């Protein structure tokens, strides 16, 4: 398998706080890769550096063989990386369909085909019946789905998902897992996800990276990682096991 | 020749301080309430007329009228914020803009109806006196006005730095959510702030009338001037307003002297553009 994304020694500091500390990992094309870690571990910051929203203080990001660190977020997206925001950022005054249209327009100049694409994606994410509603009127789970739909509409090679399951009920989580798995299987889309919902992580990811205080503390297959004592202590909580 | 430059620069500093005081009000209001008072200059002109009226009726020197005017304008500001502006807090800028443009139009034209279009002078007994210090000739009204402007600004600084209410207002400016969390009465503090901002304007108006004659049409010009000053100094920064005022005063004066006076405000705008581009938060402003 070829490596699609490689992060090497990424670090980011905020006014004294080291949010991400020398993190390296690789994601193979077609893989589903998860990043987990306690609140404030630096997961979102790591994503932001890959997506071009933040410039790393140190280290490099390589995507499909080319360096992308330092590129602006729109340039990164045009290279084929789409992201969702943990704190959802829909275009509030626009309709659900128009939100997705904007994503679809990235690779489609023709309005008609962009609209068709947007509708297909809304269909896939069970949002079709809400497409005329304004985004501001959606509930949080729907907004999370919209966030995914919009990112998907840009036809990314790599999809970055930041806690898109948070707040979903178990059945909704399962549905999302199924959708992501289908996408991954059918289109070979690579997925990098941040997740707290271990149920989803276990079901989806082939490999997991665990962050704690900005540093990678474990790395491997999900079932191995959850047994790692360091991970249990820092994240899952000693009590939870005991 | 250097003595001429000195004269020009000193005039610029003195005038700039008074303008700075007026702009200070704008900065205080924006810094806390986050409403841009697009009718700021119009309020300053109302204050000028009020000082004029007090002078003609009671021979009250504007330097003294400053105190009752500041108090009066405080009440006006407090009431205005509570009654009219509060619903617009947090709304898009263009809505605030229309609201205050409406207020400005009303002010200018009510003044026109009430006082007529001609400018109204305040004839101070010392209006034509000046101090001669070596090669430096500075006129008394300007010196007094600048000194008073510094005093008012100092009082305001003292209020914000040393009193608990001042700290509470700064707290609102710092973190509005936090202010709600600790139970500060944000609406009241906003009204208070708008009141203080207009008190500055009231005081500045009283001082302005000693160096310029009151006329309804001055309003928009002063609004623009106040804007330039606070953007240069840093919108929301109190010291910035005074610094911006002095800077504009001096640069206009020197530009007027060295180049064509008719182009002197071009320099203010050029300075404004340069500051916006190089340091958008203003000279003393903080990056948000």
């Amino acid at each position, binding site marked *: 398998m070829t490596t699609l994304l490689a992060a090497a020694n990424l670090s980011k500091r905020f006014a004294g*706080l080291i949010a991400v500390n020398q993190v390296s990992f690789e994601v193979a094309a077609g893989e589903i890769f998860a990043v987990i870690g306690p609140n404030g571990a630096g997961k979102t910051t790591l994503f932001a550096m890959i997506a071009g929203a933040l410039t790393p203080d140190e280290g490099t990001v390589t995507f499909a063989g080319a360096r992308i660190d330092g590129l602006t977020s729109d340039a990164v997206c045009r290279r084929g990386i789409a992201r969702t925001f943990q704190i959802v950022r829909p275009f509030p005054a626009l309709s659900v369909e128009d939100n997705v249209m904007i994503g679809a327009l990235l690779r489609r100049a023709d309005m008609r085909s962009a609209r068709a694409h947007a509708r297909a994606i809304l269909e896939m994410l069970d949002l079709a019946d809400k497409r005329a509603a304004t985004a501001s009127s959606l509930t*949080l*789970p729907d907004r999370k789905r919209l966030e995914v739909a919009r990112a998907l509409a840009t036809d990314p090679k790599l999809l970055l998902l930041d806690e898109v399951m*948070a707040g979903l009920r178990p059945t909704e989580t399962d549905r999302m897992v199924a959708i992501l798995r289908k996408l991954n299987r059918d289109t070979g889309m690579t997925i990098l996800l941040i997740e707290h919902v271990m149920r989803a992580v276990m079901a989806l990811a082939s490999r997991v990276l665990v962050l704690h205080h900005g540093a990678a503390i474990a790395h491997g297959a999900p079932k191995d990682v959850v047994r790692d004592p360091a991970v249990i202590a820092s994240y899952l909580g000693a009590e939870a096991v005991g | 020749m250097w003595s001429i430059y000195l004269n020009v620069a000193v005039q610029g500093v003195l005038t700039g301080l008074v303008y700075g005081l007026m702009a200070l009000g704008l900065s205080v209001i924006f810094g806390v309430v986050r409403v841009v008072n697009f009718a700021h200059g119009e309020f300053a002109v109302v204050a000028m007329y009020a000082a004029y009226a007090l002078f003609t009726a009671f021979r009250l020197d504007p330097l003294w009228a400053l105190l009752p005017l500041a108090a009066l304008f405080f009440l006006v500001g407090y009431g205005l914020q509570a009654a009219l502006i509060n619903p617009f807090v947090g709304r898009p800028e263009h809505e605030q803009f229309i609201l205050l443009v409406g207020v400005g139009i009303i002010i200018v034209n009510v003044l026109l109806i009430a006082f007529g279009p001609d400018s109204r002078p305040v004839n101070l007994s010392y209006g034509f006196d000046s101090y001669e210090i070596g090669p430096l000739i500075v006129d008394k009204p300007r010196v007094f006005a600048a000194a008073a402007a510094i005093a008012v600004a100092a009082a305001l600084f003292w209020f914000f730095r040393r009193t608990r209410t001042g*700290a509470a207002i700064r707290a609102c400016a710092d*973190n509005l959510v936090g202010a709600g*969390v*600790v139970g500060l*009465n*944000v609406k009241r503090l906003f009204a208070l702030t708008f009141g203080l901002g207009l008190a500055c304007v009231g005081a500045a108006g009283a001082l302005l009338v000693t160096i310029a004659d009151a006329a309804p049409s001055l309003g928009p010009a002063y609004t623009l001037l106040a804007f330039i000053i606070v953007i240069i100094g840093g919108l929301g920064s109190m010291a910035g307003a005074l610094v911006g005022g002095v800077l504009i005063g001096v640069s206009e004066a020197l530009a007027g002297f060295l180049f064509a006076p008719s182009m002197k405000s071009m320099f203010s705008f050029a300075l404004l553009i340069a500051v916006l581009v190089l340091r958008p938060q203003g000279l003393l402003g903080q990056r948000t």
Partner: protein
Amino acid sequence: MLSVCDIDVFYGDAQALDRVSIDVEEGKIVAIVGANGAGKTSLIRTIAGMQRPARGHITFRGADITGWPSCRVCNAGIGQVAEGRQVFPTLTVRENLEVAALLPRARGKLAHSLARVFAMFPILAERGRQPAGTLSGGEQQMLAIGRCLMGRPDLVMFDEPSLGLAPALVQEVLKTIRELNRDGLTCVLVEQNVAVSLRLADRAYVLENGRITLSGAGAELLADDRVRQAYLGM
């Protein structure tokens, strides 16, 4: 002491809380747990008067406080340590504390309150003249707690007080909450750290997508399978 009855909360058209009811007894610790975006913060903000419920009501010590502005709620004795600390970054530590004592109920007791807070968090006394924005995360959290106490509350709502703190500090903060409760303060604790907060709580509610789905004694919920599966990853 506090009872929330059937409240709905909307942001625009989006519903954040759906018929939520909770009861808080005097002197107890009540935990509210739930995933990101479940509506925990919304609940706290609603009780604190920073958000208006579309229906339902809230009573505190027998008074209907629904729709009161936050300053009035605070003055009635409900304090809050907000999500994200919300300190005033350019004010000094001392000013942060003093400003919170502007509440009418606390105004006369400034000196006493200040002494108590400094006794509880000596580090704050040390940093008294420093702008709060330059404090570390843990110090800021202490300041947020101290600031809340300056308002002399009878009930304090803690919204994710351990967020972004190192584990050692988390223990510190939780210890403080336990001590405050022992001194007679009623506490509402919102935490994602489910295990910890359930162990601390006398009573707990599980909030999911704006609805209360479970409630009971803390220890009871800790043993509940659904909770263990959904929040503890087991």
